């Protein structure tokens, strides 16, 4: 059985795309913080936990919200829904916030609400809490989006019957930039027209929105 990519979302350059089509664009260029807030408002989410997240968790969370609005994930047993995400910077932006809070012993103020976000898989936790996903989790770090590995790994989880559906992708944030590409893949005979979950297709869809 071949897994297929049913729906996907890109977030970059102050724009949100659903299945390659522009879904939301902010008025003017906003900071990542203000832009993510604008996306949250646009999606009309009533989820107060959003406000305590760091920026990269917000980015991954919002991309998954856009995808899951169109995934009909309720059809799947929650313990068989995987979340496999990756990026290049881990949580370095938030790491530096925590580091600054401890650099000066005369002005020492480490905070648990910052520190907890210095683990990249916290984003997976946030997505899982919202949707009660209880399946396989993994957060990988690669210099560039490793479509070959991500497709191989998720397909192996399907083959081993460890998952029935999965959120996959790349959610990255550096001091200068941010980028999310999150997709929903499942084994479902009714979606023959959807792209196959292969390295080639993941790469093609990822690159649909040009840099």
């Amino acid at each position: 059985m071949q897994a297929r990519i049913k729906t996907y979302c890109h977030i970059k350059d102050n724009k949100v795309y659903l299945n390659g089509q522009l879904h939301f664009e902010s008025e003017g260029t906003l900071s990542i913080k203000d832009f993510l807030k604008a996306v949250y408002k646009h999606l009309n989410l009533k989820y107060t936990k959003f406000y305590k997240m760091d920026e990269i968790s917000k980015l991954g969370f919002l991309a998954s919200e856009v995808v899951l609005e169109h995934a009909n994930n309720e059809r799947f047993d929650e313990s068989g829904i995987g979340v496999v995400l990756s990026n290049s910077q881990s949580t370095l932006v938030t790491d530096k916030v925590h580091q600054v809070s401890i650099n000066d012993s005369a002005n020492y103020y480490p905070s648990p609400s910052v520190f907890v976000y210095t683990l990249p898989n916290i984003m997976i936790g946030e997505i899982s809490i919202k949707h009660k996903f209880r399946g396989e989790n993994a957060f990988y770090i690669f210099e560039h989006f490793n479509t070959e590995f991500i497709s191989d790994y998720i397909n192996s989880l399907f083959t081993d019957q460890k998952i029935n559906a999965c959120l996959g992708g790349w959610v990255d944030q550096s001091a200068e930039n941010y980028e999310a590409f999150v997709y929903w893949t499942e084994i479902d005979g009714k979606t023959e027209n959807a792209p196959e979950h292969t390295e080639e297709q993941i790469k093609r869809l990822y690159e649909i929105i040009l840099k």
Partner: protein
Amino acid sequence: MVFFQSDNIITSLGFSTSENYTALISGDVGIKPINDPNFYPEPFPASLVNTNKLAEKFAEINRSGSFTRLEKMLILSIQDALIQANIDIKSERTAIILSTTKGNIDLLEPEKQNQFEKERVQLWQLGKVIRNYFNNPNQTIVLSNACISGVLALNIAATLISSSRYDHIVVTGGDIVSGFVVSGFMSFMSLSPKPCKPFDKKRDGLSLGEGAGTIVLSKDPLKAGSIAYIGGGSANDANHISGPSRTGEGSYLAVKKAMKEANVSAEEIDYISAHGTATDYNDEMESLAINRCGLTDVPVNSFKGNWGHTLGAAGLVETAVMLHEMQENTLIKSAGFNELGVSKPLNVITKNQSAELNTCLKMASGFGGSNAALIAKKIK
């Protein structure tokens, strides 16, 4: 099938699995008072790798180049595991998986910022340094999934070998004790003022440790009578990002998934190497999960009372000890434990003892609601 070929452990208790195993049998505790403002303004206990010995050991193998503290630990660990294994690290059929939570995070410290190129703090760069050192042709697979990283990395390695993506995988992992991590756990008020006491009534938080561990997994056994990886699973609590589930749901699901893949019943499990951080919530949660899995009577221990919580190394060093307990048919006393302090009964190991160990379970849980489990079995 997937086999465990060889392993290495580097902690405060030694630089090889056998050194660590001997120390654990003796009940040694490597968690000592640390008074160093570079880590924390006040004294606190932690388990640190001996710096002089690390330099000495590394000088014996390093030909050139300069490496961070964590890189030295990882390289020494891999080197020792490779000597005992029968694989070709330079083959395209061999991959490296690196498990770490924070990697070279100490390079963010103001006085260390210019010691290495700025990319060195990136986890993928750490993967590249390791791969280049050993001339492995494949991009290192870096996994950063909080405290389950080590067990999850072994699960991933087994998945990739059983799907024939690779023939052999060197699973390595490590983290250092740093000001970054100590201050963070202190801000959570989750560190014990004394060496931690997993599952004990008087437990009052975890102890941090540092270390590196390596396990070589392969499609080929090293010799007859080897131990095989027979199943694994991971699951999210979907409950809270920094606290474990109050019902043990994710941990329960992870163990159930591992048992299903391994095709073993609760009666067949001879021993559990628990996560056992000695925080109130973790140990309580694990007792619920173990109880829900029908494993209440199975002997269980945690090594965190010996060498603390070694984060990205934890799942690897603790699984490596489990494999050696299996080889020796020996259960090791759970350090720091006197009186049960969780709501469900557990068979915590209170003294070293002989036992026929054929099928054993390793559990792990961590921030982000993550849980993982794996099962190892002797193949006769």
